[in-house]
């Protein structure tokens, strides 16, 4: 008993919540994390391929910046990913885990494709676009509404529900494209002859409209979350449902409304993919962006402009990796590895932003 000293009670390292952190330090921590990740990736590249990492990174850079066209492709991919991220932002800010963006995008794209094919010849172009837009938004909103309704009523776990809804959407898309393609082996480009429902070419590219729409959405969602009454309600509900009730906010209504908006924007993203990018639909049209966008939204803490930055980083990596792949006859999956490592480091760095490690003997404020 006599041996006992104060040290047992206070361990060498102790973790305490930070009260707040200056902006500069936050940026520094993230920058260090990305730098470390790049070093790890460089080591990986070197040991696996024996290539000089710096020249590999140089080639990666080419993937996005070599030519204006490549840059515009990067912007196109950025727009798609960012659009899903924007859709997820309000849901996540409300602490509603919408893992179902993949399905919401797909079902929106499917609705667009159906409208395009079956109304393409009967509606004039402006009306057709309105119909496609409406169909995609309604379909996506429905996919968001279903889990939200169950969550608001019976507190059904939304993470798992929305995850399952992805595969329901995939099946529906598989079924409908199967019907649409008839005997052909794949669906192919829709309305190839008439180009009905294709976005017009603007500045040389069909997807220019996608980029413009997402740009507008970036500002609009930022404003919605920051300046609108709805956005304020979302923030309060996400922070504390108790406070929301105290403030007279109808939590159930906010939850359902927000998920309808989230799903609708996902559906809109499906519309953009079909009309502006692919001109077709398949079960892989969303291409995993529904999942990647979750990471984008989370890391950006729901600020749409940060989201644009992170999306750009991810698209840059993806394009760079496919550039490496063709330059060194490797394969594109390197992008997933490099992305994964960077995500791990950024996720880990959050810890140093939210917590601080207190060494024994250091003066510290007693926790509440």
């Amino acid at each position, binding site marked *: *008993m006599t041996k006992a000293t104060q040290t047992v009670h206070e361990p060498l390292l102790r973790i305490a919540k930070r009260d707040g952190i200056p902006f500069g330090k936050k940026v520094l921590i993230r920058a260090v994390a990305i730098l470390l990740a790049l070093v790890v990736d460089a080591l990986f590249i070197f040991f696996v391929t024996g290539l000089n990492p710096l020249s590999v990174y140089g080639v990666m850079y080419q993937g996005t910046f070599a030519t204006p066209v490549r840059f515009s492709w990067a912007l196109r991919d950025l727009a798609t990913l960012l659009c899903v991220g924007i859709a997820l932002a309000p849901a996540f800010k409300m602490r509603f885990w919408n893992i179902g963006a993949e399905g919401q995008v797909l079902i929106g794209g499917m609705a667009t494709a159906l409208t395009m094919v079956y109304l393409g010849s009967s509606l004039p172009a402006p009306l057709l676009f309105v119909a496609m837009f409406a169909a995609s938004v309604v379909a996506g909103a429905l996919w968001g509404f279903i889990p939200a309704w169950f969550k608001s009523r019976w507190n059904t776990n939304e993470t798992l529900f929305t995850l399952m809804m992805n595969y329901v959407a995939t099946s529906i898309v598989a079924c409908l494209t199967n019907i649409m393609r008839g005997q052909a082996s794949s669906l192919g480009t829709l309305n190839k002859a008439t180009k009905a429902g294709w976005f017009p070419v603007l500045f040389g590219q069909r997807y220019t409209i996608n980029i413009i729409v997402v740009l507008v959405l970036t500002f609009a969602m930022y404003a919605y979350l920051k*300046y609108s*009454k*709805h956005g304020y309600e979302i923030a309060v509900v996400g*922070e504390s449902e108790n406070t929301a*009730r*105290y*403030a*007279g906010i109808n939590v159930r209504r906010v939850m359902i409304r927000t998920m309808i908006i989230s799903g609708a924007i996902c559906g809109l993203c499906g519309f953009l993919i079909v009309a502006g990018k692919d001109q077709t639909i398949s079960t892989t049209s969303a291409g995993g962006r529904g999942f990647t966008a979750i990471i984008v939204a989370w890391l950006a803490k729901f600020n749409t402009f940060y989201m644009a930055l992170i999306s750009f980083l991810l698209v840059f990596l993806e394009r760079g990796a496919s550039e490496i792949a063709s330059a060194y006859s490797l394969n594109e999956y390197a992008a997933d590895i490099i992305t994964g490592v960077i995500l791990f480091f950024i996720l880990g760095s959050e810890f140093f932003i939210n917590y601080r490690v207190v060494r024994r003997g250091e003066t510290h404020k007693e926790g509440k």
Partner: protein
Amino acid sequence: MAQTQYAIRLEHVTKTFGGVAANQDISMQIRRGEILSLLGENGSGKTTLMNMIAGIYYPDEGQIYVNDELADIRSPRDALALGIGMIHQHFKLVDVFTAVENIALGLPKSERFDLRRVRDKARAICEKYQFALDLDQKVYEMSVSQKQTLEIVKVLFRGADILILDEPTAVLTPQETERLFDVMRNMRADGKAVIIITHKLHEVLEISDRVAILRRGCYVGDVVTADATEASLTEMMVGKKVELDIERPEPKDPVRRLAIKDLTVYNAEGLKVLDDVSFDAYGGEILGIAGISGNGQKELLEAIAGLQHPAPGSDIQFFPPEQEDKPMELLGKSPRAINEAGVHLSFVPEDRLGMGLVGSMGMTDNMMLKSYDAGSSPLVDRKAPQELAKEIKEELGVVTPDLNTPVSRLSGGNVQKVLVGRELAASPIVLMTAYAVRGLDINTSYTIYRLLNEQKKKGVAVLYVGEDLDVLLQLCDRILVLCGGRVNGILDGRTATKEEVGLRMTNLVKEDAEQ
């Protein structure tokens, strides 16, 4: 080892939290084979003291002797190894486990793991002390009293012979309390040392052999229960009246604003937390609400604010200014509906950051928590809230680096100023505050009293839920005492004595009449 009479001896124990002494130089003893009551007001440091014996906290200064040996208790495990078990107010049980599984949780590795043996041993304990406990029942199916019994069995199972019960009767019905007392007497007969933390004087007198009293973190002394009366204990507990010099203007033509009738509220567990509460509140006066915490104060205010679902037969009526003859029913209205009906009801809840404010938002955004929806624009207007925030910051001296700094980063006093400031700025007709000065320093507390008095002079009906009797007696015009969810008398703040209020807080007057 020479067995002396003391199971536990504390010597000069001091514990400080953030500069405030929760326990100051406390020396006391607990004997084997006795039941000791630890008595004191809220915040007098009873639980902190017992937590040090149970290994939750470690004393800053002083020594703890267990069975006359200096003990170093650093964790609940250490405490159990010394035979000390504490039953906390918040049960530490796993809901989906059976009683046996909960007992088996964290048993030392040296013992072979066999749930049947655990059950047999637990059953033997139950039989010995006559516990009615189904050992195969899941915890979530148990009543509060059964959960408490399980906690006691858990502690006894580990061989504890020093038991600490932290306000065990707060959640029990009178019958259940009687049963618990029988158990405690059995344990005493078994030679165990039993400590019970409680506020209820009649229980102290009924169950304990000795009473130790704490006041504001200090040890006042102990008395043999047989020599004590409720009056003498109350006096020791509340101490002499302290002159606070709080202003108390005379109410000017008080008008009835609220009429509460037969208000009954059940909590989520189905327990009656408010029982037929009836009273009126008047504009231009401060109605104090006294009571040991957890006796229905929170539910009372929340029910008026539209945040509870009172039982049928309850009634809350509001009398609008200038139209006192046209009362308005508040019952069944949501907070939003109440607000929209023009009832300016301000409410400073007990949980400041978990209910009254949004911790992650700055002052400006918090200003509009209740008013953001005004107007038809889809956008929020931050101009007025920002002006208001600036005003409150200056007038109340809120210390914050910026109006947009998350309020959760401010100190407790500043958080409360933000909250009170906002609620007063809404020009209330009725103002309700719960523990408005809890945790605040003297200066801030006086600022709050001043603000409340200003509201009173404006004709606002103020409901002040408080825990410091001196403040209640010197600030309020009338004092309603809640005890066990019932109104236990409404006293005149100018003539009532501390003892009178203290007695009513701990003891239902009606019960006295029956006895």
